[in-house]
């Protein structure tokens, strides 16, 4: 049996990728299971999904703690998630990035495969939906399923939902990623500091779970704690407002799910500490004053 952990963000389709990979493995005569683990379901929030593949029935129902492969759909997750956690000794991490494996810095040097799945998705699909392209990279890095099976799985899963043409485009994205994937070794030395968690035992847990504003080892929790939750680090795309074009209609201010747009002297302004880059503002702006561009973080 081998196990895969997918790291993505809510709305990026990590769960679909994990399922499509399971289907590809199944099409080759394997037994495969796949399941997601959601936190607070919210666009942009870190989410995980898992796939297990074996040649016999899989009975275990736990999450995957010691994966053979880790797939990172969004390279910004490396900053906040311990993507190498539990990775097996000879395990491989597959990352969506414009960088080469040797340019990727992780907590230790590991087998690493990289591909610019976002670039491919933008080119082939016209949208930054990377969950099919990344499967091509995964097939390449594992060598455990044929790219043809991945294409077939994508056709079945995505084609059925989005139509034949869209299915074919997604399959093409996977094939392109398969061909462009670079395999090497990452750099190490970038220490990962896990965010402390507030885990009260039965004696510390407030009665009825009623929580005011509380300072804990994990920072502020409860009322007003959102101030400390800087959702800006969820961003892969960044909005830029052209103040010349902005007519001050407040549509973006009204629709922004993070409430991070304010009106300054009649024009919209974004607080990038909290902007998670969802693009809703750009979609709603009647004056086309907001442009979303891909953000590259150091």
């Amino acid at each position, binding site marked *: 049996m081998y196990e895969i952990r997918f790291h993505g963000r809510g709305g990026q389709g990590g769960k679909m990728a994990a399922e499509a990979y399971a289907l590809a493995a199944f099409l080759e005569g394997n037994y495969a299971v796949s399941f997601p683990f959601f*936190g*607070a379901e919210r666009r942009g929030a870190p989410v995980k999904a898992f796939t297990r593949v074996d040649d016999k029935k899989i009975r275990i129902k736990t999450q995957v703690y010691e994966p053979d492969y880790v797939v990172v759909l969004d390279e910004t997750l490396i900053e906040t998630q311990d993507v190498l956690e539990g990775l097996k000794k000879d395990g491989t991490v597959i990352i969506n990035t414009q960088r080469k494996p040797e340019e990727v810095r992780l907590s230790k040097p590991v087998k690493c495969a990289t591909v610019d799945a976002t670039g491919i998705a933008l080119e082939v699909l016209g949208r930054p939906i990377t969950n099919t392209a990344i499967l091509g990279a995964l097939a390449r890095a594992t060598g455990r399923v044929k790219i043809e099976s991945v294409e077939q799985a994508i056709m079945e899963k995505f084609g059925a939902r989005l139509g034949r043409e869209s299915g074919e485009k997604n399959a093409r994205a996977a094939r392109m990623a398969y061909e462009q994937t670079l395999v090497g070794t990452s750099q190490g030395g970038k220490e990962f500091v896990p965010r402390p*968690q507030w*885990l*009260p*035992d*039965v004696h510390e*847990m*407030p*009665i*009825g*779970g*009623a*929580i*005011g*504003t509380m300072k804990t080892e994990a920072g502020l929790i*409860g*009322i*007003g704690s959102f101030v400390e939750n800087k959702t800006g680090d969820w961003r892969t795309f960044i909005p830029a407002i052209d103040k010349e074009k902005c007519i001050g209609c407040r549509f973006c201010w009204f629709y922004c799910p993070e409430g991070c747009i304010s009106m300054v002297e009649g024009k919209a302004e974004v607080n990038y500490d909290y902007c998670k880059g969802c693009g809703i503002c750009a979609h709603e702006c009647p004056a086309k004053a907001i442009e979303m561009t891909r953000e590259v973080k150091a």
Partner: protein
Amino acid sequence: MIQKLERKKMVITGDYAAAYGGMISGAEVVAAYPITPQTLIVEDFATFVNDGITDAEFIMVESEHSAMSACIAAQAAGARTFTATSSQGLALMHEMLFIAASLRLPIVMPVVNRTVAAPIGIWCEYNDSMPQRDTGWMQMSCEDNQEVLDMVIMSYKIAEHRDVLLPIMPCLDAFILSHTVEPVEAPSSDEVAQYLGKYEPVAKLDTENPMAIGTFAPPEYIQELRYHNHMAMENAKRVIREVTRDFARTFGHDYHGLIEEYRCDDADVVLITIGTVTGTAREVVDELRERGKKVGLVKLRFYRPFPREELQKIAERVGAIGVYDRAVSFGSGGPMFIETRHALYGHSIPIMNFLAGIGGRDVMKKDVEKMFEMLLEAKEGKTSKEIVWIGTRGVTP
């Protein structure tokens, strides 16, 4: 605030006793939706408000679901609340019951036990309250209207206790109590106010000091909260014993804790009853005793928390135990029977289940006699029946 009310004797319905109990306990917010046979409780409370006897906020709602929602919100804001329901109304409230209990809000809600459709019936059956077993509410049954009034008052004392903080439903049988008048002695408003004191919430919604309750919680948090609720229910046993003792000293009526034993001391067999059948069964016990049969009665007052320890002590001294149930858990047996057998695991005496009075069918003295007769046979090893349907046409008991 309520008007000054003197100690008095009244001849009242069980519903009136429930409403009077809520009012004299100083309920500040009432939200309820009428349903037969609880309707009188809502009407009587509305009359208290209309007549200025209490200045409680009476909220008219469009369903029982909303009634419970309103009580949850009011209790979370720090008010002492009161509501009442029955049958389908309780079923409609179901999802909100969990929330009230998990938020640890000591809401008091008399439930008039009425059959849940189909077919539509308005008479007594416990298939409304007993399926609420796992919502986290305390649940008990009354034998007469005096107990209804006293128990509503005690309910606040138990529910608001710091070691408990759980909602409670004191139950009364449809019509047999709800619409039956009998003499009831009510304490004065001063006595009750002194006995209960002010409701002091542990945490409350307050704009000056904001608080979040009932928010989203991932698996890292929920299990500890469930443990809290389980322990609160275990604590409730001790608190109930203390409160009934204290109530007896203060008001002179003794309810003996979670159960009451009647002529059990030297009994060969005992029957566990619940609700109004208890009164009838007392008569039968006396008559059988006169005929030299050593039978006893255990009045089970609390279904949640369940009096495990009390029943274990009784099982040590008797030769057979019968459990009367007015509801069926299909495919297993009567709810109280299931609980009793679980509590008495390891005891080798026969334990029998008697199902009778379902759908409000009258449970007569001869029915109770039959139960004792079969128990005495079981003690002698003459029957090994377990689940016995009494008075069901075409079914031999």
